């Protein structure tokens, strides 16, 4: 069966797993039923435990679903400590459902798969050795990749039923009031973990910093928490995020960033009270800087900035150029510290951020969004999941969710080394072309033909040529040559869900 982005899907597998093929980016107005967690009633005086082992033994059974958050990124100690205990205790057939998987988790996940401890995974993404392992058929059941908004949707629907959530926090009190802002290993917003805290049957906090009761501000509340475990260290602050975000000097990235800014400022959305989301890549950070100057020059202020937050964005907040920062995660220490000190930087959970099945998510209010791409094809479909060798090495993140913004700009170089970014067909469709409006490369821009309204506004920007995306693709191919098609087996190693839970593409096992 083929879906609406012309991808051939394995009919048997979809039926077996009760999936529908992707049809449209329109969510409509369905009525949905949300689920609620089980609660073991307590007054809360017995929550503090000194051993992960005891809690695992008391809560976990074979076949259950466990979850973690990835806010510590590559500075995470909690994931490895808990997984070690779970593997050693001999648990089998668990489903691993973290908000995402970072490099520091790879080795132990592979070990857990080999031991039969983990037999299913759902995540935003995976990279490095784990992506390689899965792409070579190391996990029997296909991994399910979901965007951050879709994970929230799936949890609320009960598609992901978390039995036990293990959540590391830099500070908590004895009843489990916790935040991500105080302690040694701070990361700011707990946005993704808030879903787990709200919907898991058992919520286990791990912290190296038990503070006086009651701990405020409380992002995770005592009403949600079953256990508080004291550990030596939850994370390595130096590896959570860079201290100060480096500003790119790469002329190609600067050129792209300047062009992105030109597209924004010439669009009808650049007016007082507009809103935006930028990513954390080099070009995206540089855009923030160009945008700042344009906002000052034109006396325009933004109503809010959304998403993963970096210091350049919180600087705009402190300068008064942005009224509010709606913060689901912080990419650097500057942004994390700012959440603590600036009350206009609001912590939001993944549902509020991006869940499509909602009474309104923040992304639905978004005017301008800048996203990256590993590949984009002549139909404007974007791949952020598989590399030029067909191997899993990325994450959906909020890509599909934020792309529903009114002006979605993909910023990407025409080629990277010998690999073309603009291609006839992406290896893996993650974000459908229907939700992408403009592609910005260092050579010029391409406007999605579905957005004729933008063509007028963006066609006469000095120094910004407008191309047909097919011509950009040919330009790229002329430079790097025609690659030999990648070879895959028939075996599906991963399913890519669209944000509404339909299947937009699959990833096959690589042949080599």
């Amino acid at each position, binding site marked *: 069966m083929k879906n609406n982005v012309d991808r051939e899907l394995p009919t048997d597998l979809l039926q077996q797993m009760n999936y529908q093929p992707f049809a449209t980016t329109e969510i409509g107005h369905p009525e949905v039923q949300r689920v609620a967690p089980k609660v073991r009633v307590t007054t809360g005086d017995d929550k503090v435990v000194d051993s992960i082992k005891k809690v695992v033994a008391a809560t976990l059974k074979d076949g259950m679903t466990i979850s973690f958050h990835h806010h510590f990124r590559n500075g995470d100690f909690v994931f490895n400590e808990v997984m070690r205990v779970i593997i050693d205790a001999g648990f089998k057939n668990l489903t691993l459902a973290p908000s995402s998987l970072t490099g520091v988790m790879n080795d132990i996940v592979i070990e857990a798969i080999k031991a039969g401890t983990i037999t299913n995974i759902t995540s935003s993404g995976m990279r490095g050795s784990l992506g390689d392992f899965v792409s070579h058929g190391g996990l029997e059941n296909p991994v399910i990749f979901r965007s951050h908004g879709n994970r929230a949707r799936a949890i609320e629907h009960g598609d992901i039923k978390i039995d036990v959530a293990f959540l590391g926090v830099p500070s908590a009190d004895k009843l489990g009031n916790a935040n991500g802002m105080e302690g040694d290993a701070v990361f700011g917003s707990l946005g993704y973990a808030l879903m787990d805290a709200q919907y898991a049957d058992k919520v286990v906090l791990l912290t190296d910093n038990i503070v006086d009761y009651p701990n405020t501000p409380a992002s995770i509340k005592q009403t949600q928490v079953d256990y508080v475990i004291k550990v030596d260290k939850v994370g390595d602050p130096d590896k959570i995020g860079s201290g100060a975000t480096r500003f790119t000097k790469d002329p190609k990235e600067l050129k792209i960033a300047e062009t992105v800014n030109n597209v924004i400022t010439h669009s009808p959305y650049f007016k007082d009270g507009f809103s935006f989301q930028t990513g954390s890549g080099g070009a995206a950070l540089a855009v923030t800087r160009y945008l700042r100057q344009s906002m000052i020059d034109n006396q325009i202020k933004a109503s809010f900035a959304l998403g993963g937050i970096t210091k350049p964005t919180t600087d705009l907040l402190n300068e008064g150029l942005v009224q509010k920062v709606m913060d689901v995660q912080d990419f650097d220490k500057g942004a994390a510290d700012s959440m603590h000190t600036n009350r206009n930087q609001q912590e939001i959970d993944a549902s509020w951020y991006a869940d499509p099945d909602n009474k309104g998510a923040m992304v639905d209010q978004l005017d301008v969004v800048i996203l990256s791409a590993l590949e984009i094809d002549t139909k404007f479909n974007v791949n952020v999941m598989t590399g*030029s*060798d*067909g191997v899993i090495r990325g994450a959906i993140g909020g890509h599909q969710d934020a792309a529903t913004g009114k002006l979605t700009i993909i910023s990407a170089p025409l080629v*990277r*080394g*010998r*690999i073309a970014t603009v291609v006839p067909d992406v290896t893996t469709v993650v974000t459908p072309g229907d939700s992408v409006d403009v592609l910005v490369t260092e050579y010029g821009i391409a406007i999605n033909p579905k957005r004729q309204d933008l063509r007028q506004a963006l066609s006469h920007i000095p120094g910004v040529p407008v191309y047909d995306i097919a011509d950009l693709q040919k330009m790229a191919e002329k*430079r*790097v*040559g025609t*690659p*030999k*098609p*990648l*070879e895959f087996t028939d075996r599906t190693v991963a399913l890519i869900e669209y944000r509404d839970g339909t299947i937009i593409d699959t990833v096959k096992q690589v042949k*080599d």
Partner: protein
Amino acid sequence: MEIKKTAIAGTLESSDIQLTISAATNGISIDLQSDVKKVFGDQIEGVIKQTLSDMGIAAAKVKAVDKGALDCVIKARTIAAVQRATETTEQPAWEVL
């Protein structure tokens, strides 16, 4: 042309290729390392072989460490490596360029 010594051209910087050419008795052998080997391996080896043939090299051992170089770079590095290996840098084979 005869290979008189082992010679290197190119760097390990992104978008470059480092070629090491040494003498061999029988034909051309290429040991290619590249992140894009799956999709461009044949083409990279093809450019190296064609350039060697254009320069009259019938037998050589080539080690190529590719960092995403374009064809023009691969050709330039091959020519430089051959000129160094054949000690002809003072009398470049202009017709090949």
